[in-house]
C-alpha cells in the first residue's frame, strides 16, 4: 500500500479533476451502475450460491443450512448468520487473518437488510418448535475488490438465497445431498450505495472513486418502496437534502437491480 499510495493519490486527483468537468472517470452517468453479471447455482456443496460481477468487483456468496438450537426467546424461529471474507487475493491490501472492521461492517449491513426486509420467513425455518430450527449461514467471499463491495455483496447474498434448497432432515439427521424443497424468499431487499465526491452524489462508486469520496450512504429498499436498512459511512457529512435525495435514488436503483435478480 505504502508504495502505491502516490499512485492512488494521482488517480484520485484525476477523479476529482474530471468531476470538476461534471464527468466520472469512466464516463458513466452520475447515477449509472457498472455492468452487472449474476451467476447462480455454481457450487454443489452449497445449498445455494451466487457470483456477482459488478464492473471489476467480484463477490461470491454461498448458503449453508444447518440444523441448530433456537434462541430461548424465539423457540419457533430459524436464525441467520452473515459473514464476509475479504480473500487476500482480492486486493494487495487485504491481509489474511481474522475479519477486519470493514469486513464486519459489510456483513452487518447486508445482514440488517435481509433481516429488516424480512427476506426469509423465520417461522418457516422452524424444524420442531423449541428443539431444532434451521440456521441459515450466508457467507460472502470477496474475490476482486473493484469498489462498492456493499452492493455486490448484498446482491450476491440475496442471489444465493434465491437459489437455495432446504436439505432433507429425517430422524433427527441431515441427509447429505438430498433436499426437501426450495428455500422460500419473501422479499428482495436491494442495497444501493451512493458516494459524495466534492458536492456531487454518484451511484455505485468504483474503487478509485471510493478513494476520492468523502462519505458514502447506503440504503436497502424493498419491492413495495419501503426502506429497510440505512448506513452512512466515511468521515464526511451529508446535508438533510442530500440524504433525502439519495433515498429517492436508492429506490430507483433498487428497482433496476432487483429486476436483474428475477
Amino acid at each position, binding site marked *: 500500500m505504502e508504495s502505491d499510495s502516490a499512485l492512488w493519490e494521482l488517480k484520485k486527483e484525476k477523479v476529482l479533476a474530471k468531476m470538476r468537468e461534471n464527468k466520472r472517470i469512466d464516463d458513466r452517468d452520475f447515477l449509472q451502475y457498472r455492468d452487472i453479471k449474476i451467476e447462480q447455482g455454481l457450487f454443489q456443496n452449497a445449498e445455494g450460491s451466487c457470483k456477482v460481477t459488478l464492473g471489476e468487483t467480484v463477490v461470491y456468496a454461498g448458503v449453508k443450512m444447518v440444523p441448530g438450537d433456537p434462541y430461548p426467546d424465539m423457540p419457533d424461529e430459524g436464525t441467520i448468520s452473515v459473514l464476509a471474507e475479504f480473500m487476500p487475493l482480492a486486493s494487495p491490501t487485504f491481509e489474511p487473518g481474522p475479519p477486519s472492521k470493514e469486513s*464486519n461492517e459489510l456483513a*452487518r449491513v447486508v445482514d440488517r437488510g435481509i*433481516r429488516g426486509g424480512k427476506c426469509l420467513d423465520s417461522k418457516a425455518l422452524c424444524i420442531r418448535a423449541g428443539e431444532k430450527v434451521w440456521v441459515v449461514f450466508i457467507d460472502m467471499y470477496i474475490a476482486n475488490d473493484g469498489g462498492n463491495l456493499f452492493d455486490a455483496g448484498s446482491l450476491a447474498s440475496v442471489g444465493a438465497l434465491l437459489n437455495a434448497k432446504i436439505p432433507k432432515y429425517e430422524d433427527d439427521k441431515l441427509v447429505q445431498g438430498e433436499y426437501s424443497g426450495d428455500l422460500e424468499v419473501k422479499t428482495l431487499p436491494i442495497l444501493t450505495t451512493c458516494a459524495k465526491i466534492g458536492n456531487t452524489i454518484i451511484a455505485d462508486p468504483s474503487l478509485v472513486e471510493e478513494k476520492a469520496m468523502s462519505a458514502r450512504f447506503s440504503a436497502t429498499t424493498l419491492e413495495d418502496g419501503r*426502506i429497510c436498512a440505512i*448506513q452512512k459511512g466515511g468521515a464526511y*457529512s451529508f*446535508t438533510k437534502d442530500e*440524504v433525502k435525495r439519495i433515498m429517492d435514488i436508492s429506490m430507483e436503483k433498487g428497482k433496476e437491480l432487483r429486476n436483474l435478480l428475477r
Partner: protein
Amino acid sequence: MDEELTYVNDAGLRLDGRKVDELRPIKITPSVLTRAEGSCYLEWGRNKILVGVYGPREALPQHIQDPTKSIVNFVYRMASFSVPERRNPRPARRDIEISMVCSNALERALLVNRFPNTKIDIFTYIMDSNAGTRVAALTAASVALADAGIPMTDLVSSVAIGRAGGTLITDLTKEEEDAPDAVDMAFAMLPNTEEIVLMQMDGEITKAEFDELVELGSKSCKKVYEFQKDALKGKFKQNDESVN
C-alpha cells in the same frame, strides 16, 4: 410480544408520559476522571455512560500512522452487567461496527489534519443501558473531547429517532424499540451546520417517514446540543470561579 400496547395515547403521550418529540432526562458531567485528558459521565434515561479521552498522542505501532491526519479511534464497549443478560466482556461484532461509525462521525468535527501521525482515543463504556446507547456515547464523547481541549469545529450531537405503534417518536426506550413495527434510527449532526455525520437504521419505513425522521432527528439533536453546551458552560464557569 406486546402487540396490544398503546405506544402513544390519545393525549399524544407515550408509555413513560413523554410527548412524541420529548427527550428522556439527560444529565452530563464533564471532568469526572483525573487520569484521562478529558472525560464525561452521562446519564440519559436509564443509560449510564463513562467516557475518557486521550490525544492527540503518537499512533503506535508506527505502521498505523497516517502522515496526513490524526486517527480518530472511538471505542464502544458495554460493561458485562450493563444489559439484562450478562455480556461476555470481549468486544462483539456490534461493538466493532458502532466504534467504526462513531469514529467517522467524530472525525468531521475534529481538526484531524493538524495532528499528523497521531491518534485521538475516545473510550466509551456503557455501564447501564436502556436503548440509544450509541447516540448517548457519541453525545458524551464530544463533551469529553471538549473537556480535553481538543480543537473541534463543532460538537457532535446525537439522538435516536424512530417509530413505535405507527407514530414517529424521538429517543426510544427499550420498550418502544421492542414494538412490533419498531423502527430505530441512530442520528448525529453538527448542530451548527446541520451536517449529518451518523445515520444507521433498522426496521421498515416509507420515504415520507424517512424525510420526517430526518427533520425530527435534526430538531432533537439541537435539544441535545443544549445539554452539551450547558454541561460545558458549567464546567468552564466552575473554572472561572476557581480562578477568582
